[in-house]
């Protein structure tokens, strides 16, 4: 997992709950990195899972919700850093449809070791897009947060529904219905 996911997560925790909580969830987790992250490094995926679960325990907010909130926040981080890539893309669906065959292809060029989820997209009608998420990371909620933030970015409104296609959450159907 790229370091930026950890640094941005911990920054968000600090902003909302103070550094005490950050220190606390690091201390309660078994981290090979020792809780030291830099955005350009790469760290084991299990560490973010432990951090999120400890935060949930500490704050009594469900993991699902935490990931969704973090996803929403993370989209803005991406816009800040890579905004120029988005200029040529006219709307949210277009951006979402280009993830698999354009964005992820470019990401791999920059970070050959990146492990990325797979997305299949299908337009059901002019206002409905269906995406199928596949990843061993089981972070579909993070994706839902990103999508919601994406709609906001393009000034679009709509509903994002999530439906697990497997029990373990590795394959998830996400349906985005824009309001007319």
């Amino acid at each position: 997992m790229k370091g930026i996911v950890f640094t941005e997560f911990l920054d968000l925790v600090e902003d909302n709950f103070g550094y005490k909580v950050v220190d606390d969830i690091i201390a309660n987790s078994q981290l090979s990195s020792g809780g030291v992250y830099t955005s350009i490094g790469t760290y084991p995926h299990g560490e973010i899972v432990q951090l999120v679960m400890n935060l949930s325990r500490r704050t009594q907010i469900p993991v699902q919700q935490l990931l969704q909130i973090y996803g929403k926040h993370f989209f803005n981080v991406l816009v800040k850093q890579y905004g120029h890539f988005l200029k040529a893309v006219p709307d949210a669906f277009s951006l979402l449809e280009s993830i698999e065959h354009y964005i992820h292809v470019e990401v791999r060029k920059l970070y050959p070791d990146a492990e990325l989820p797979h997305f299949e997209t299908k337009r059901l009608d002019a206002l409905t897009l269906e995406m199928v998420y596949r990843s061993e990371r089981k972070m579909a909620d993070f994706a839902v947060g990103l999508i919601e933030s994406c709609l906001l970015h393009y000034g679009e409104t709509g509903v994002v529904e999530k439906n697990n296609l497997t029990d373990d959450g590795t394959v998830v159907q996400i349906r985005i219905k824009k309001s007319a």
Partner: protein
Amino acid sequence: MTELNLLKRRIERERLARKQAEAILEAKALELYNANMELRTLNESLEQKVAERTEQLSASEEKYRGIIENMELGLMEVNTEGVIVRAYPRFCKMVGYQEEELVGLNAASVFLPAEFLPVLKRQDSDRAAGKAGVYEIQIMKKNGERIWVLISGTPIYDAEEGFVGSIGIHYDITYQKNLQRDLEEAKNRAEEAEHAQKQFLANMSHEIRTPLNAILGMSHLLYDTQPTKEQREYLDILKNSAEMLRNLISDVLDLSKIRAGKLETQQKEFDIKGLMRSLVKSSQLRLEDRPLSIELDIDPRLENLVVGDDLLLNQILSNLINNAEKFTEKGRITVAAHIKALRKTQFVIAFTISDTGIGIPKEKLNLIFQAFRQVDGDIKRKFGGTGLGLAIVKQLIELQGGKIKVKSRVGKGTTFTFTLPFGLSNRKIEQIETYTPQYQRLNGQGKKLLVVEDNYMNRKYIGSLLEKWGMPFDIAVDGRKGFDMAQQELYDMILMDIQMPEMDGYETTIAIRQSNNPNQNTPILALTASALISQKDKAFKAGFSDYLSKPFRPNQLFEKIEKYCKSISYEEVVDNDDHTEGVKFAYHERLNHELLTELYGDDWGYAADMFETFLTHTPAEWGQLVAAFHAKNWQEVGRLAHKIKPTFGMVGLSDIEKILLTLEQNAKNQPVDDARVTQLFEAVEQELPLIMTIVGADFEKISAQLVMGH
């Protein structure tokens, strides 16, 4: 305290994270640097390679250009407008210009003669379409001289502009072109000459044959004039030589016909056994006084007529038989025919002609079928011949799809074997193996005779007699036609001359007797010019029923006809006392009949001699008299008139004889009366042309009488 510890931990984490980031960045920077270095090296080596390649390319271009230039190939480059861009040294040398003179000029207007403009235009459009091409044109050198060049042109492309022009490689082929032209001329001349030669040969053969046939014809006629023994010998030589010459010409013509593919084979039914029997029988007749016999051996399975070319088979077999006769001193010649292969519609017959002659040396065997080749010069001197016979035989056999082989042992003999395919016929050969002289006795009216005679006067004579006696007859003008006619119709009697061209009377009679035809048993009367016993013997052996020596009188012929056609009653119309009436000869009315009858009576030979003497000598002698007259040499005129006078009397010109006597007297009497002499001279001079014509015509008639024996 807790706050402080928390802060310390935070700072520591931040510090560690910074170090971690620095380390990663350092590593990335190094990575970047290395990648950059690598890229630079790669670039450098690439540039070097490009430079090397470019150098190699231009070196190789120079190398090939150099090679082409050294190969006497002139290179010139033009742009798309045909303007010269570059002219290479060898090309400049070829056309006699300097490069500076040429660059910038239009190539066509400098070099091209107008008649080649269309050729170049076509090439230019090919070049623009990207096609290379090779073509031959003439170009003009600086000094105006023209040379032929072979040009290989190819378009030139530029990376930026595409088609920018073309390059032409010029090779000077003037020498080859001239050679080619000379060769073509020579070939045309040779072909014309060959054609002319063929035409000449054909014409000459014809031209030679015409007088030769006349010589042969006349020699045959001479046999009928009761020649003396000595004259007959001379005649034999004359006839044999003329025949040899004609055979040679026929052979040459045959050979050239075969070689030109002009000889066509015929397919007709014929009696192969009869053909072979006739040939063997004729040979037997020729070999009579030689210690040499000839035998015939025919496959008993040959029961039917065969389909093929009888004339060609006859020519082949008689050539080989004649050859065997020529080269065999004593012993035996065997002629055999056996069926070799029998198929549904055709079969193959193997013919063998073997002799016990001198044989042919092994090393010469391959020569004998070549035209104009004989085994050696000695053979030619000893045996004569044209050397064409076997060449013709071989070609005639091969023409019909057959093959010929020869085996020989020197001093033992030679065997020729050839095969020929024939078609099968359903018609059986009528089984008349040998001729037996049993004459048919003919009854009833309307019986017919066949007269085979080549002499026109004799035909007229015999014809007029038969007409007079009311006997129908057919006429054949030579032996070959006689044989053909004998195959068509049954005759009651055949009157056959002996000395004839193509097939003589003996050969014709043998053919009639030996082959399947209606006249195998018809009486044949030989009309011989000789009363020699040997001739009579020969006639009987050939199959003649009887003979009659020329000249014969009408009643002699009538008796012979009566003997063989007994029951026909011709007596009523025959006037036995007037045998000669139908052919009685009368001198021209201008001539003195009484005198001539008194002089010659029935002695036509004497009369002919006298008339001939007159015709031969008078023009020259009269010419001398004319010369003397114009010279007014009266004495000479008188002397010549005296000399010439009796000749006129001898041909019955008594009146002229008298005038000449008067002329003689007047020319001798002094003083000479010029006017009188002139008058007498002119009287004869004016009449002379007419006289010569009349005497000439009568001489012809007398000669004819002579032939008839009247």
